[in-house]
């Protein structure tokens, strides 16, 4: 019990970045969750132990301390690694199908159902007459 209380949390050993404020700390956590490790496909740079992720975390921390905005930091990485690096891909011609595709399919399906139901009920009425 005592041991559990005194043990250093595991994450503290990974890497420690000093920030001037809690707000900066929060931004660091949010940004590193939002940026994707280019080497490991399905991990954010906060989760990944890859060398490139360590370097990217270091750069994010530095840019926050230097006073860059969140947008500037994300743009810096997107300029270098492409939209791939962001877990919130922007809306542009290359990503449009991702954003619009599911909604379009849903609408098409909905319209299809409405058309079918209406026709069926009309035919049922005709049969009654």
């Amino acid at each position, binding site marked *: 019990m005592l041991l559990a209380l005194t043990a250093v949390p595991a994450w503290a050993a990974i890497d420690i970045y000093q920030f001037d404020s809690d707000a900066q700390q929060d931004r660091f956590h949010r940004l590193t969750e939002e940026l994707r490790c*280019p*080497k490991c496909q399905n991990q954010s740079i906060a989760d990944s132990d890859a*060398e*490139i992720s360590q370097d990217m975390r270091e750069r994010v921390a530095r840019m926050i301390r230097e006073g860059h905005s969140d947008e500037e930091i994300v743009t810096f990485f997107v300029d270098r690694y*492409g939209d791939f690096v962001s877990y919130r891909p922007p809306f542009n011609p290359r990503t449009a199908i991702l954003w619009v595709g599911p909604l379009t399919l849903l609408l098409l399906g909905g319209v299809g159902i409405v058309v079918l139901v209406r026709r069926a009920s009309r035919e049922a009425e005709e049969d009654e007459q």
Partner: protein
Amino acid sequence: MSKGTNPWVFLPLAAFVALAVLLASGLGRNPEELPSALAGKPVPEFSRPSLLNDRTLTEELLTGRWQLLNVWGTWCPTCYIEHPYLLELARDGVPIIGLDYKDEDAKARDYLAEYGNPFREVIVDADGQLGLDLGVYGAPETFLINPRGEIVLRHVGELNQRVWDEKFAPVLQQAGEAPGVTP
């Protein structure tokens, strides 16, 4: 229904086939190959020591002629495989600048002494921050840089004869540059 087959009946099938074709076309692609985001942009500014001498190297090193920038490290297994081809290119007169990425200087010098040096200069990037500026996420990577110091092409992975013929040679030919001949 006696009015013949309604053509709309085939819509779901058509939609399914279209989606299947779209998704199947994605299967053959290598998900590790990221688009070359920096293509067309100038090489970022830098000031780094040389591995080979006492000079301090800057982005000016990468201007004035067509040349390759090859990112390597002694920790990178594919770099050993690629190395003989780099030596061959260098022998043919293709200027290659090395970027020793996240490596130890002593090991890197030993490597070049043992396997031969294809590089005209080698930029030391021990902490990997210049690599980050270039969008490097592994090694080897090879950039083709034009005389204005702009990145024209980027290849991730091993550079070999096939990649050279398919990707690099056409660009150089279009630029009126016979591969290997420096202006």
